């Protein structure tokens, strides 16, 4: 028994995280979708359905992505360190796992539009979008998926940054949370040009059409946020001291 291999599975953390999270995401999404469509039918009893309910509902999962980011650095990272893994190993595997979870979530959210399309077609309701997106129609699945991916990425990265700061020192958190919020506001704004005044300025500065939603702008902003959040987070966690435990 003492001769047990040290690392039988090099990606044990990522696998562990992905298995747990994928199951949770599937369960939560199923409940969420059931609730959203039930609500649409309930509304349909009182007034005609004229727009996509899924679009409105999809505001919520981005908060979940942010929460996953916070948990990544404030909960799971210390857990894995305490169980005999380095910060570097843990962060690398947690990043891979979170990327996987976000992708799954984005796929499921895109699937929501497809399911809604089927339901609306049967009921004879129009699947109209009210907000601006990277996509014009609720059936442009590649762009829907891309938008969710970009959004969730920024939310998770901002969450991971804020989470590491809060764990390290609540005083750092006071600074990091507004920075994280600024990241998600900018990325949201890039998708909704009419949402905030300064988007025009950002759009102009980036040299893209300010009054239309641009894939390029969203990509650039997402990558920009990642380029900011990743080193900032690593700076906070590379020598992260575990908090002492209460007896």
């Amino acid at each position, binding site marked *: 028994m*003492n001769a047990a291999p040290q690392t039988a599975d090099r990606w044990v953390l990522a696998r562990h995280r992905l298995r747990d999270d994928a199951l949770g995401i599937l369960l939560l999404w199923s409940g969420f979708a059931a609730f959203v469509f039930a609500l649409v039918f309930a509304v349909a009893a009182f007034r005609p359905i004229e727009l996509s309910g899924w679009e409105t509902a999809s505001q919520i999962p981005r908060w979940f992505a942010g929460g996953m980011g916070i948990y990544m650095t404030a909960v799971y990272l210390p857990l894995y360190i305490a*169980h005999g*893994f380095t910060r570097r190993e843990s962060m690398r595997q947690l990043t891979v796992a979170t990327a996987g979870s976000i992708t799954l979530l984005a796929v499921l959210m895109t699937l929501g539009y497809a399911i809604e399309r089927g339901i609306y077609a049967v009921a004879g309701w129009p699947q109209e979008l009210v907000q601006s997106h990277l996509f014009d129609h609720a059936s442009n699945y590649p762009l829907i998926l891309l938008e969710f991916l970009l959004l969730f990425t920024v939310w998770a990265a901002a969450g991971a940054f804020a989470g590491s700061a809060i764990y390290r020192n609540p005083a750092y958190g006071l600074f990091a949370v507004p920075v994280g919020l600024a990241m998600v506001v900018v990325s949201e704004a890039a998708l909704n040009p009419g949402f905030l005044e300064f988007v025009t300025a950002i759009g102009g500065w980036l040299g893209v059409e300010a009054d239309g939603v641009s894939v390029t702008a969203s990509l650039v902003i997402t990558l920009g946020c990642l380029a900011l959040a990743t080193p900032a987070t690593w700076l906070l966690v590379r020598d992260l001291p575990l908090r002492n*435990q209460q*007896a």
Partner: protein
Amino acid sequence: MTGELELQDVTVRYGDTVAVDGLTATLGDGQIHGLLGRNGSGKTSLLSVAAGFRRASGGEVLLDGQQVFENPGAVRRMCCIRGAGDTVEHDWPGDKVTHALELAATLRPRWDRGWADRLTQRFNLPLRTRLGELSRGQRAALGVVLGLASRAPVTIFDETYLGMDAPSRYAFYEELLADQVEHPRTFILSTHHIEEVASLFETVLIIDDGRLMVHEEADALRARGAAVTGPAEAVDAFTADLDVLATTRLGPTRSDTVYGELDDHHRRDARERGLQLDPVPLQDLFVHLTEATDRAHTHSATAPGGRP
């Protein structure tokens, strides 16, 4: 089996507070080491650094000659148990006792599943209870299971096993000792409550104010203290050139606790002066040793990382 832990001039600072102050010690492979110190003496800070939970502000920690901090090969062979063993309490629905055990089984390369099950039963740990709802004793017992069954070559228990009730603590000592014969490893047990565990230790480290005061084989330390009792003047003359840790007077009788080996010459001398020599229990030695420095310099503020 290897697991020699070397602390070289280890310093831990929190801002201006020095919790561990240039501590150097080598903790031998396959031995049970007792780390004794009063609350706020720097035990937890020292162990956090030893396990790679925290980077030392100065100095180095080596496991079998290899740097510990951020070294996968080293940290994988260490298990430092604090509280309930650093388990996640806010991770619904995966936050039950059974999940904590499952996680350790996945992540600990030498995990002994069968033993973990037996220990869980022996300590009456409720598998389906959420971690946040465990009592203090149950949390400590969970930590004990996670530490023991990990079979990590260096296993550290930071005091919290003291949260268990007496029968559970005795069961813990029994399991630890029995396993130590079969699968020897390096244990470090920190405590401020010595009487009960002293006989478990092969070596004892006493730290006070972040400094190492004593690092000796437990049995050698037991032989190092003596209480010299008799007429005040005779005691005074006898202990004049000895290291006196404490003095008590009762009328014309005086009793000095001295630290250091008394040779045959001393013993004969004491007998001739009509003095009585008594051995001193470890707990008393510890109290006197740490009190002596207390008097030497007033205590600075407790480290913020210290146990409340």
